């Protein structure tokens, strides 16, 4: 054991040394695990910032067994210190060990019921493990879970802003998008939540999994809140398993959506009351209530399409609100949120609906469009690369080729062409 420690201390200098150290450590791994109880004092001899790889192996062996509460708090401190001071290149050589250490860290933090302590170290861990900011690691969903439990949503938002292009494990993506959706709902950023939940629901899956079912329920509700409607069919890029099974598994929500589209608030509220316990058991009752209140907004927006001016009393009647005062409050809130453009004349209680005042003649608009075009260009390049990869995929070629044999030689039409403008 001491010999191993001295070897770690000696071989942590250059990159080639570290590789040979890694081989040594792999061979010594079993013996480390066997002696896991004796290891903690050795940890003090190693410096996490210089001997990250060796420290990682030792740490992983230490935390392998079941951990008591007292041990948990000391381990939490050690692991947090390790994460903040370790060297990224060394730990990337043993990513699965690092991931398992961090996962145990999360378990211990939850055991101590202090998820807030785990948020910052987990964020550092993600940054060190990621190969690029577009890479989704197994630590992302753990981090989001900690943020959710500790209710610090703002730090999570910084991670959610990044676009993801590479994923290690599909389960990570599902969990990440699901938690991300929940965090966005918490921050009332419904558009982002919709995007993330949409990803879960339409992700390729050979069989429907529980995460997708839960996500689908939230997806229906958020879609009602944000768009005021729910498209009954999933887009064609959703897997066929999802298309067939998800709706049957979330029956009460689908019915909620259909009664929403009728536009009558009283019916909606009755339905919600009737199925309250089902919604509650899914922890979605708050979201359902938000969906009901968004119904008023939807109705007011529908009014803007028919009328140019309307009195507050009329609005209250049409939208089934109790008094013109409530109608005024709703309209004011919507004007502030930017959902409608209107002016309220307080003297005679009339509301005038206006057009979108955006004239598209400012430099800021130019910058916005320009940045969107740049983003679209990068996406387009990546898509082209993926398309080419897919065309060369043997699975695809096998199935595409199979269909062609039935036809004549004259009927030869190969892989579909691009649009020729």
């Amino acid at each position: 054991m001491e010999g191993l420690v001295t070897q770690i201390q000696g071989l942590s200098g250059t990159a080639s040394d570290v590789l040979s150290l890694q081989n040594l450590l792999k061979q010594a791994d079993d013996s480390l695990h066997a002696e896991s109880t004796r290891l903690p004092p050795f940890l003090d001899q190693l410096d996490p910032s210089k001997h990250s790889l060796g420290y990682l192996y030792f740490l992983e062996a230490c935390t392998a067994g079941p951990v008591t509460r007292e041990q948990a708090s000391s381990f939490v401190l050690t692991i947090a210190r390790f994460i903040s001071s370790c060297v990224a290149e060394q730990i990337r050589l043993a990513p699965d060990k690092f991931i398992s250490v961090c996962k145990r860290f999360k378990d211990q933090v939850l055991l101590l019921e202090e998820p807030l302590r785990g948020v910052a170290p987990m964020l550092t861990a993600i940054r060190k493990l990621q190969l690029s900011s577009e890479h989704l690691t197994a630590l992302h969903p753990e981090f989001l879970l900690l943020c959710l439990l500790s209710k610090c949503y703002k730090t999570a938002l910084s991670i959610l802003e990044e676009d993801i292009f590479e994923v290690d494990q599909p389960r990570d993506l599902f969990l990440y998008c699901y938690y991300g959706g929940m965090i966005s709902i918490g921050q009332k950023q419904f558009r982002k939540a919709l995007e993330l939940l949409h990803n879960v629901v339409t992700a390729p899956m050979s069989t429907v999994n529980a995460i997708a079912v839960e996500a689908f329920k939230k997806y229906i509700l958020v879609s009602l809140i944000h768009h005021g409607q729910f498209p009954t069919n999933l887009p064609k890029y959703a897997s066929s398993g999802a298309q067939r099974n998800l709706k049957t598994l979330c029956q009460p929500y689908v019915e909620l959506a259909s009664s929403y589209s009728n536009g009558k608030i009283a019916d909606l509220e009755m339905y919600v009351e009737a199925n309250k316990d089902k919604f509650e058991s899914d922890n979605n009752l708050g979201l359902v209530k938000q969906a009901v209140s968004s119904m008023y907004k939807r109705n007011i927006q529908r009014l803007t399409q028919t009328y140019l001016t309307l009195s507050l009393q009329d609005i209250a009647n049409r939208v089934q609100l109790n008094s013109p005062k409530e109608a005024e409050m709703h309209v004011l809130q919507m004007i502030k949120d930017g959902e409608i453009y209107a002016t309220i004349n307080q003297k005679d209680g009339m509301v005038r609906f206006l057009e979108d005042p955006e004239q598209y003649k400012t430099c800021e608009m130019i910058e916005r469009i320009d940045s969107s075009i740049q983003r679209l260009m990068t996406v387009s390049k990546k898509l082209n690369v993926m398309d080419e990869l897919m065309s060369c995929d043997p699975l695809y070629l096998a199935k595409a080729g199979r269909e062609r044999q039935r036809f004549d030689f004259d009927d030869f039409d190969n892989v579909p062409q691009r649009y020729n403008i």
Partner: protein
Amino acid sequence: MASSSSSGLTFKLHPLVIVNISDHYTRVKSQMNPPPLTSTSATVNGVEPLQQAPRVYGCVIGVQRGRTVEIFNSFELLYDPSTHSLDRPFLEKKQELYKKVFPHFYILGWYSTGSDAQESDMHIHKALMDINESPLYVLLNPTINPAQKDLPVTIYESELHVIDGIPQLIFVRSSYTIETVEAERISVDHVAHLKPSDGGSAATQLAAHLTGIHSAIKMLNSRIRVLHHYLVGMQKGDVPCENSLLRQVSSLLRRLPAIESEKFQDDFLMEYNDTLLITYLAMFTNCSSTMNELVDKFNTAYDRHSRRGGRTAFI
């Protein structure tokens, strides 16, 4: 051999002449049998591939009014290596023909290709001196030099200089300007851009138009960068301060912007935004079509219960 001319004549060259000369040269060169591609075989033979740079000859014609000489057109002539002179009867016949069509045009001189004027050219030059007392020699350098910004055309005159006590005729370089008529500009433009003859589909026309604009803007950008670099150098003191140049730059800057009113800004920005939005829309469509194909392929490859049966039978 070449210093600057002191005759005080101003020369105006039409682009038609340049196009003619380059066309002549290109035709002759491509009609010859191309030499073997490998350079090693050429050196093994010990023979320098002289055929690679044929010299072509011809006459230039135009008008001389006072001190201005304007070269309008040119025609080709055969060079007789035995007599080291141009084909005289042919030249006279051509001259008569051209006189019928363009009564004002005279033979002003002759042209050839090469990198520099040579001694043997003086022979031809003297031979032409009976038609025109002071003929011109237009020389086109056919080697393409990408670093060179000017046209590789030089005009030489002959002057009597006293060298080593002997009065000799030597070639002296003269400066010239390019003069264009509207019709010429259109045809030169056409040749320069090599547009497809049938007009092509809308896409190729748009692409050609945009390529033209892009190259123009690129050139403008590089020229401005050169100026900027120069001015920065002048500011730092590396380059001696030249006031006339500074005045020119300042007058150039004062010419922009041409219009500066709020209505113009509004309209300009709105149109700019419209164009950007259209580009955005086009990119979107392109992206969605790629995405669509990708999803189709993915579904075909990986979906367990994908639709069988693809297409209906072709009747």
